[in-house]
């Protein structure tokens, strides 16, 4: 049986690396006392798989983990897992949803996910400067950047990866997944420039830092938050695992983020 968990990475834990997060989950899975499958060999490791990596210092409302279990678990146990995982994860890493997913024939999360939505805070210019930069990038047929790949410097056209890009002038700054919209109380005093971007992840992902670089040399990233990951299908797109509807009053992130 394969179980998929969705979780956050918010606040101080944003400085934890992907590798460290894997170790944190490894311990959490043992503490949650689940019948986790182990790899064989000299160093047996629990069998779990992350989706796309998140850069150190970036935050997220939508990280995913698939865990293979040796025994099936019942509905009640499944329903209790979000709470059980959160209790054994550090502040800022909260499990927000859990579901059973097909383990045979299912493709890996990393292959399945086709795009991510980001909130990208920027320093280095005014709202108008940002609007101009966004328009210039969207108007371009192709936008080449140089980046390192497998030790080689390559020139890549990143324009096809930018599915949407806009300056968030209305709901600036609030990136909570359960944002109440009008009247939202989480807007910071000085949100500065905040972009909303949907970035393609296939065949390889475009990193937010690379997108910022493509906007121009003056821009420096502030708060960067992944809001969602998406899987395309014929009728549109869906999240690997959606959040439960409504506000998330049990989130512990506020205490660690401050």
């Amino acid at each position, binding site marked *: 049986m394969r179980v998929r968990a969705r979780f956050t990475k918010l606040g*101080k*834990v944003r400085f*934890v690396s992907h590798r460290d997060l894997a170790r944190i989950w490894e311990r959490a899975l043992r503490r949650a006392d689940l019948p986790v499958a182990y790899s064989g060999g000299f160093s047996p490791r629990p069998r779990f798989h992350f989706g796309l990596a998140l850069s150190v210092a970036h935050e997220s409302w939508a990280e995913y983990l698939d865990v293979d279990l040796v025994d099936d678990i019942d509905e009640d146990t499944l329903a209790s897992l979000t709470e059980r995982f959160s209790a054994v994860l550090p502040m800022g890493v909260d499990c927000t949803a859990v579901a059973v997913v097909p383990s045979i024939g299912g493709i890996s999360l990393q292959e399945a996910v086709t795009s991510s939505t980001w909130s990208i805070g920027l320093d280095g210019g005014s709202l108008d400067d940002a609007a101009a930069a966004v328009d210039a990038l969207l108007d371009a047929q192709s936008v080449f950047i140089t980046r390192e790949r497998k030790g080689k410097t390559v020139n890549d056209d990143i324009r096809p990866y930018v599915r949407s890009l806009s300056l968030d002038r209305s709901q600036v700054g609030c990136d909570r997944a359960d944002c109440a919209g009008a009247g939202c109380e989480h807007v910071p005093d000085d949100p500065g420039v905040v972009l909303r971007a949907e970035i393609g992840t296939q065949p390889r992902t475009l990193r937010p830092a690379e997108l910022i670089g493509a906007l121009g040399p003056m821009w420096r990233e502030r708060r960067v938050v992944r809001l969602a990951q998406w899987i395309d299908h014929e009728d549109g797109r869906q999240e690997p695992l959606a959040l439960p509807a409504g506000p998330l009053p049990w989130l512990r992130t506020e205490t660690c983020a401050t």
Partner: protein
Amino acid sequence: MSSVWPRLEPLLSRVERPARYIGCEDGAQTPVHAPHKAAWLLIYPDTYEVGLPNQGLQILYEILNERDDAVAERTYAPWTDLESELRTHRVPLFSLENHLPAGSFDVLGFNLAAELTYTNLLNCVDLAGVPVRVEERREEHPLVIAGGHCTYNPEPLADFVDAFVLGDGEEVVSEINEVVADWKRSGRTEGSRVQVLRRLASVPGVYVPSMYAVTYDGPRLVAIEPRYPDVPARIEKRTIASLEDWPYPRQQLVPLTEVVHDRLNVEVFRGCTRGCRFCQAGMITRPVRERSAEQVRSMVADGLRRSGYDEVALTSLSTADFSGIEAVVGGIMGLDDNITVALPSLRVDAFTVGLAAQLQKARRAGLTFAPEAGTWRMRQVINKLIREEDLYAAVDGAFSSGWRRVKLYFLTGLPTETDEDTLGITELARNCVAIGQRHQKGTSVTVSVGGFVPKPFTPFQWFGQNTVSELERKINLLRNDARKSRGVQLRWHDPKATLIEGLMSRGDRRVGAVIEEVWRNGGTFQEWTEHFRLDRWVDALANAGLSADWYVHRHRTEDEALPWDHVSAGLHKDFLWQDWRDALDAVGLPDCRWTPCYDCGACTGYGIEHVVASAVPPAGGSQGTGQDLSVGHVVPVSLLGRRAAPSEPVEVGST
């Protein structure tokens, strides 16, 4: 006090491994500060990765936070990249729990486990915004206190540390806290700093260097004496009678980022009676105090459940000597197949390998043994009484049970060492490779060689350390010999760093000027090869008019005043001197738990005896010493739970 987090956060994106500065570990406390609570910042003056696992710091952290009149937070030395950001942006050193400025605490409490961290202590004090020298501090500055093994020669840091604490911290930390909390409640008024230090000087186990006058005669130290009648002439270390009463840490910190010894650690006993003459830890932590097997089992089970670790280390100076070892091992193996048990200080014998085989079902990557010297004569000198056949049996056991690598630790530059002794190291290693080849092709044995540094309160405290060139010569002998030996891989420590470790191990108060100058010239993280530079030390010694020959390479005489004579680890100086003479005669001294008492002073001085969980000698018999345990001995041990009165010795080994 307000958090520096908003100012720190933007800097963290620019530094390596920022997760080490955020706190948030499992087991981290959320202390609430208050005017009546003394606020401690516990500091390990090395990187987070090295310092976080330190059990001493974690024990004090919990004990203090359990008190109503104390709070404790932690910090570690920021790496050079963050240090430079902090200095550029004028952000002070901060605590990890609430990210409060270090200077706003009442106490900066350092754990000193290695001499090469001394310059980091100065750097941390400076980053806290506190003057590095004791005499420049005022009432608004925290008290700088240090504990840990290095405090058995406190003198090199005497100008920078307000108070040193000797020995076990579990009890004395509360006594110090009461003095500090009083000081805080009284408003730390003008002139109160010297009073609080005077009060601390009368707490047993606490040494306040500014209350003592030092006299010299040329390069020679004459005496270190109290300036006031109420200040003790001799400071005795603190010793807790029962480890069982202190089952700490109860909630070991589980870091979010990888650290050294990243596993559950459970201390099974403190102290050691083996009497290895080079080993300061074994001498200064006597007597032996064991936990019961039952308590160890429950600490392991609770700790694994709470932490999610899949590895537990049973820690002590020689864990296979723990008298409850088999009971504990049986208990742990019943818990979970995927749990690995580490025995970090393996004894060299087949029993130990059998034990390790039982414990490490999976992951048999490497086993490490520490014969310490290459010939039997040399091992008698250092009193590490391992016979060659014990080592070969252990190595044979390791390779036949599926371990693929064996690592051997040795010291070079030992007293009376000849080239034959030195080359005995590679000889032993070659024989181990040959044994391994009976079981596997391409066997390799890694030999790790360190230069010997004589330490205070050991029989070798009078020995003149080998010079850098002598150590380099010996290492070259080994390198040439190892090159000719298939399967022997040699690693060695830099003799230059060994020299400086020696300088601080046995230096006196005048060495402080050298430490300060090296720090002022940027010499931090000296135990990190990439940051160590000998020329800084050589220049600073010259500027201070001091000589490395005098402090490091000179043999000391029996009548000479030693810089640590005014502190006491409980050991009689005449016992140590006799042991030194015995060493020079290559006479070994068997484990005192199974022989009559040698009156080293550690037990009698504190009215405590070796406290063991079983009257039967540890499984595995003589443990490589060749000592005959088959006949009954009357030995002065107390049994946990039913402590024998000194007049009722326990019959041992008669079953």
